[in-house]
């Protein structure tokens, strides 16, 4: 077994800027208000993933899951700690990929594939497969700004899954897809998983995580509070099992997202 992802004491702090114009800044300084505030989205997280492992990343809204994935795929850099990955990384983080609205689906496909590390020849070879999977029909050559959000997600997912990556990150990518397409995507992901690709799957759907993953990580306000088997992880998250912990739920962060 080889290590695929090594995350070592990683933290990420966001600075929230309140005042953008000079006038607002001056007013804030005079009144003694803070000019910015920091927020720690990922807090001293460490774990190691072996090649071929399939990880379910769970946690409430705002617990830092997307931020952690952005750190892993290199969009963001950690403020402290180190991240090391092996091989090609593909995937979708939060809905919508880096598409350019004025460009056609075809041009976006080539551009995205190139960013994910595919050469021109490789893209051409896989072109039909990607287009078939996304099932865009005659919309392939219209600007993606005319796509429905589902079509957008289809194309994005289709490109990412066909990249033949060593690490695949899926962060609530399919939230807007319809049922048959979601099903198709899960089948495809299982296929990729079978080929030994490391998978990071973010989802609130326990049953789906149970089927897809070998291991669950639970983030709670930036802390990695659980790292272990799938069933234990899901049980760890079942706040509403008994009355006592239900109070926790009432007071806890869940209230914020309802």
């Amino acid at each position: 077994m080889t290590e695929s992802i090594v995350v070592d004491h990683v933290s990420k702090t966001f600075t929230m800027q309140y005042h953008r114009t000079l006038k607002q800044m001056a007013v804030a300084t005079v009144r003694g208000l803070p000019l910015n505030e920091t927020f720690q989205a990922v807090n001293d997280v460490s774990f190691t993933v072996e090649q071929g492992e399939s990880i379910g990343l769970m946690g409430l809204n705002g617990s830092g899951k997307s931020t952690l994935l952005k750190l892993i795929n290199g969009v963001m850099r950690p403020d402290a700690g180190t991240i090391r990955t092996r091989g090609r990384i593909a995937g979708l983080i939060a809905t919508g990929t880096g598409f350019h609205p004025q460009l056609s689906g075809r041009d976006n496909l080539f551009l995205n594939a190139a960013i994910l590390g595919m050469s021109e020849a490789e893209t051409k070879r896989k072109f039909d497969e990607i287009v078939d999977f996304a099932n865009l029909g005659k919309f392939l050559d219209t600007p993606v700004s005319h796509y429905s959000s589902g079509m957008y997600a289809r194309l994005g997912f289709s490109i990412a899954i066909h990249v033949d990556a060593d690490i695949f990150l899926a962060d609530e990518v399919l939230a807007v897809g319809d049922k048959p397409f979601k099903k198709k995507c899960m089948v495809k992901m299982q296929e990729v998983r079978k080929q030994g690709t490391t998978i990071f799957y973010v989802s609130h759907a326990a049953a789906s995580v149970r089927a897809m993953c070998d291991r669950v990580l639970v983030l709670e306000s930036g802390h990695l509070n659980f790292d272990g088997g799938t069933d234990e992880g899901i049980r760890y998250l079942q706040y509403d099992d008994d009355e006592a912990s239900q109070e926790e739920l009432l007071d806890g962060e869940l209230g914020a997202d309802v």
Partner: protein
Amino acid sequence: MRAANKAHQQQQADERGRRKNAAARARALAEKKADAMPVVHLEGEKQERFVDAVLTDPAPRGGILEVFQQRYLLRLIVGRELAQLYAASLLGLLWSYIQPALRFVVYYFVFGVVIAAHRGIPNFAIHLFCGIVFVHYFSETWSAGTRSIWSNRNLVLKMRVPREIFPVASMVVAFYHTGPQILVLMIASIVVGWHLSFTAVAAGVLGFAILFTFAGAMALIFAALNVYFRDFQNIVATITQFLHFMVPMMYPFSLVHDMVDKHPVIYQLYMANPLAEAVLLMQKFFWQASVDDPSSVANEFPPDLWTRGFVILGACLLLLLFAQKFFARLEGKFPERL
């Protein structure tokens, strides 16, 4: 007192009720979410995958060098910029020639015919057009480069790319626009009698080197600044309006040189502008070499043109190095500032 207490109790009861309600909704949501994704099981044995790579940082600090390793991606991004520029435009690429052509006509009329500043400048049209073309290249690189990260935030936010690629793409796009203009300039120079000489070529090479390093450095610095404060794109747009007046093209350099004794500081400031030096070197290549007797216009160049040129090139290389460091420093925070 009692009333206040009662109100407080009531408030607490309300609060409890609201939370209970929220909890019920949270559970309902969790249940809905639980079967929101279809369940598909793994079929067959998992295979082992051999990954022929070492553990590395997913966000390497490759800088500009990494951009040149990813030429295919650069080509796609440049193609995309061009396509986007001329989407839904009838004249398309022609627009980037219409603007300098009009500018040329207007300047030629005002400075050449009305003010007659061209007295003593043979082939004034080439003298002027030479300035217009290279100032155009610099202005376009600088202003498009400044906007480049911001206008590509879709990509910057979602995917890992060496972010220097966007300012560099602006340089290439600007060259795509100025390339044919340079060709026109070259043809015009040859028609009026351009002749090849070693000094001319050396001046051309030095001029291009200064132009590219300076434009690239400014594009990088301002692209990073513009992510933090969008004011910078307005600042750049304002400055580029004046650039044409800050290089010797509508008026002869000898007029500028006349200031050297009366206003030495202003003269030095004027000459410290790498763009002015680059335009002078370009004029040495295109214009002086097209004049019948090149030595007759020797006073249209500073006596220390060459030393100045090398010093400025050195300064621009340092500036580019600084720009890369500066960009790399700010770049880490781009995704959260966009």
